[in-house]
């Protein structure tokens, strides 16, 4: 499955949000890739995520392939929509 996520938290995907995103992604069996501006990375890797330089307002394309794709998509969307718990 594919979904678009718009990043709304102030810091963008800095260390803490990137770590939360990677840890959440890692809890699923599916392969998860993220794409931004022609670059892509492994959603289970904090380094990959931070390397995309995602800022507030950017939109990510997330491609999920595997047995728990639907759950993974929903969980990642929730994380982003909740702004990673930031104020």
């Amino acid at each position, binding site marked *: 499955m594919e979904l678009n996520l718009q990043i709304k938290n*102030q810091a963008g995907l*800095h*260390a803490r949000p990137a*770590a939360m995103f*990677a*840890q959440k992604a890692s809890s699923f069996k599916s392969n998860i890739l993220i794409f931004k501006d022609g670059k892509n*990375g*492994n959603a*289970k*890797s*904090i*380094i*990959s995520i*931070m*390397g995309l*330089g995602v800022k507030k307002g950017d939109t990510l394309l997330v491609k999920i392939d595997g047995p728990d794709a639907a759950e993974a998509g929903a969980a990642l969307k929730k994380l982003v929509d909740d702004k990673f718990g930031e*104020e």
Partner: protein
Amino acid sequence: MWKIKGIAASAGIAIGEITHMQEAVHDFCRLVDASQTPAEKERFYAAQQAAEKELEILQERTAANMGEQQAEVFAAHKLMVTDPSFVEVVLNHIDNQASAEAAVEDAANEIAAMFAGLDSEYMQERAADIKDIGKRLVRILLGGTAEVNYTGILAAQDLLPSDTAALDLNCVSGFITALGGKTSHSSILARAAGIPAVVGIGSALEKLNNGDTVIVDGHVGEVLVNPEEDILDDYRLRIKKEQERAALLASVGHLPSETLDGHHIELACNIGTPGDMEKVIAAGAEGVGLFRTEFLFLDKTSVPTEEEQVESYKAVLAAMPDKKIVIRTLDAGGDKQLPFIGGLPEANPALGLRAIRLCMVYQDVFKTQLRALLRASVAGNLHIMFPMIATVDELLSAKALLQEAAEELTKEGIPYKSDVAVGIMVEVPAAAAIADILAEEVDFFSIGTNDLVQYTMAADRMNEHVAYLSDYFQPPVVRLIGNVAKAAQKAGKWVGMCGEMAGDPLATPLLVGLGLTELSMNGRAVPVVKHRIRQLDVKQTQKWADDILSLRTASDIKKRLEEIALQFEI
């Protein structure tokens, strides 16, 4: 003697001998035979585990010595050591016959280069993180230990987080680095540990020799190399004075904020989020004189719910349940636009639809906040403060809305305190001019000097060309403060201050003399101001204040206050 100019990264002065940090030079073979590939992978996995263990210990030690926040960087390092992208790059290199050491070093450098190419200082700092991890793994692969022993003034290209965490901070008295800025790890850690540091000195680092005597002046960002004896004496005296000052201020923390003749001047803090309460308590303050509630509203796409607000207000009140907590209602508009309200750009935002004026237009938003405040009032000693009041009508309509909110809660059977104190922020000269009238309608005044100066002097405080007018020691400002205090006293109400002036120890004798009984400031200013208050005699300050009210210029007033300050210990 010669001087090096750098960036002042951590305040304080240190004198000592230079020790250059040994940049570990590692020799290892880079290429291995293809048959060795599985063994090299095993070595990498073992090093990875050892690194995780080391980082765990570093994280615990740093948390204990310098606080959880400083330790977080090692939690991030732990994640990076096992990061799938990092591991993938390392394993690829090993598959191409690289030794584990070469694979780790190359992978770390490649990823660091990617981070360094991103256009933010923050991400460039992350490049230092990944290099640090690479070095750690290489050292472990070569069988090295993490122990280091440095004394004196440590000079280095850059101090990586693991370098600083492995230092014995009792032996190192200062840092000098060639790279880095105010926000680098080394600077942040130096500040947290209270060690003077000058960073970003560039190639001057190479001119420093082991054993050179240097003075590290972390206040101005200077390193004095091989100074003459009289200069050394000068700085030794400054260090001694700083130590005495620090010891004295630390001892003031738990003492009451009382003048010599027994008058209590309440010292409070200005805060922006409930998370700031820890600092308020640590500063030895007696409450909150200004809680700015904007954080709940700005940068939000929708109005914060009543529940959300109740929770935040309660968190602050409950942190000091028996202390006075002054919460200012929404001060938005002007240059702080609310996304969910919209509105047109104004030609003159400082004089436009902002603060109480905006709230009276968007009454539903305002009433929700007032309901939330009343509901939270059961958790402590709440004082509600309206910003930007200029007329009695504004104050009366705001109070009427508060009354309406209270009646709603009564009807709904929701508990709240019925005797919540209500006051206004005096920051518009109009309010200062009719302070006697307003005093009849409030429980307290709090003077906001930043806006009061801007409006009184008709000088934009962000405009450097009129900066000479933006001075709270300007006689018209001082006189207005005097008027407000007199009007409040006459009506039997208390008057405080929550602007920048409140935290300036130079102004303390004047403010006490004018009759202010509460000063709210940044936590850092509390010990100095408290110490000053403890040396004052109120009768004497009143004489000074009378005298100062007759002075003609801001520089006259400042000069007089500086003369007065000479008699205080600090």
